């Protein structure tokens, strides 16, 4: 039996050939090293994301999240729900807290769920993967499977918004959370703790709808990483990863910058430190190659 078992909510972006498929591959790699068993919630659905508010409204958004809870409750009883995506975690946990706090809302939600023959009793516990790693394993526990040090790698820890606000990791501040830096240091890397854009918003969904406004945000995030001597950026959020990596070439085209800053997930750093290959860490999934990390993986 695995050391820890969780009901897994991968989310739309972490599916095969989706925009964060490299997050999924590397997460699976670290789970193997840490002896974690993730079981996908059967037939899970989209959380509605934050931008779903406009058309989706309140109850439909909560009801689709409750559908996932009901599935987990029935098929994976007693297991905490773990999301890797910041937006999935946020939407699900927000729904969970609203449902915990209102018997009326729970009643209405169950009225909706009944249309599909489902029922949610309540009491789901929705957590982010980073929360699980830090709280259930601890920094020492995360060090245990290490086979290689990331020594010499200068890494800007970009926490972003939704893994940090409004819930965040217990005991961390919203303005200057330290956990990502601590994870980097645990793996032997050099965390650039003075990196001042660590909680700046990447623009979220507005990277699509308002590219000019968002690209200003992204420029600040990348520029500051360069200013502090970073060789790569690490993030726990799929949308942060995609926005900050993908739009660098656009910003270069429009603004004459020469950005070429790799943006990786913490799970990719961990996979390499745990002795995994570049393929185990899905480093072939980077648009901007993380060459220094690939080099360590190849050693």
């Amino acid at each position: 039996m695995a050391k820890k078992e969780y009901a897994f909510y991968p989310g739309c972006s972490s599916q095969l050939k989706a925009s964060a498929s490299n997050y999924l591959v590397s997460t699976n790699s670290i789970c193997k090293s840490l002896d974690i068993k993730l079981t996908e919630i059967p037939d899970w659905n989209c959380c509605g994301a934050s931008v779903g508010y406009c058309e989706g409204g309140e109850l439909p958004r909560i009801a689709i999240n409750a559908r996932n809870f009901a599935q987990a409750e029935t098929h994976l009883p007693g297991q905490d729900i773990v999301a890797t995506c910041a937006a999935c975690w946020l939407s699900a946990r927000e729904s969970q807290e609203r449902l915990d706090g209102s018997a009326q809302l729970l009643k209405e939600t169950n009225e909706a769920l009944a249309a599909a023959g489902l029922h949610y009793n309540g009491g789901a516990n929705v957590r982010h993967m980073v929360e699980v790693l830090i709280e259930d394993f601890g920094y020492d526990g995360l060090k245990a499977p290490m086979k290689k040090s990331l020594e010499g790698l200068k890494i800007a820890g970009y926490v972003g918004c939704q893994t940090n606000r409004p819930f965040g990791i217990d005991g961390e501040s919203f303005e200057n959370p330290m956990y990502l830096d601590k994870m980097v240091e645990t793996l032997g890397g050099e965390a650039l703790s003075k990196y001042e854009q660590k909680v700046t918003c990447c623009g979220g969904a507005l990277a699509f709808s308002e590219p000019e406004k968002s690209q200003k945000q992204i420029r600040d995030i990348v520029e500051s990483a360069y200013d502090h001597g970073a060789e790569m950026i690490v993030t726990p959020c799929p949308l942060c990863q995609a926005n900050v990596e993908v739009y660098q070439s656009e910003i270069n085209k429009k603004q004459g910058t020469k950005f070429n800053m790799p943006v990786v997930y913490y799970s990719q750093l961990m996979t390499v430190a745990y002795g995994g290959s570049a393929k185990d860490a899905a480093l072939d999934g980077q648009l901007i190659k993380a060459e220094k990390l690939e080099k360590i993986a190849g050693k």
Partner: protein
Amino acid sequence: MTTANQTAVERYRNNFLKEVEANVEEGHMVKMCMQCGVCAGSCPLGPHWTHSPQKIFMMIRAGKRDEVLGSDSMFMCTSCYNCMVRCPRQLPITHIMHGLANYAHRLGLAPKGQPTRDFATLFWNNAIKKGRVNELMLTLRHYFRGGLVSGIKEALGMQSVGLGLFLAKRLNPMEIFGGHGVKDLKGFHAIIAKAKEIEDRKKGFTS
């Protein structure tokens, strides 16, 4: 004027705060705002909106219904939650802004052609169609929203990114034929329809 809007105007007359409290997500918290302005200074889109959350909340209390529901400000929300965690009175500002956006959108009063309003609608419809987001179709529909010519131009501008994502196995051209989805699609749609029915009844959206 939509029927739902007409009904709301007649029902609440000059008490817009009451209307917001009854119909907007977390609207009952609006009156807790003490006008300190921390939200205004915390928003990453600060230079772009017409009204800060602080202003919106005061305008609600002042009964400025048309100005609030026609404002572009709610659609500038990136859902970064900065305003919300910094608010000294702990107003769920992000949720209220989302709620106001939804209310204005449903009443047909939100600014027409507002890019995030359009994208948000596109996103929700894409996600619920099969129960999971089809990233390829979301991207294509977004680029081609203004018609074929501007769509081709925008898509060509982004083609190197698209190709890069495809080579990195992060974009699947086969999604044009459907892509990922939930198995019990009928049940999933039934849940949403029922939830919408309950919400519409409560918020007066039913005609």
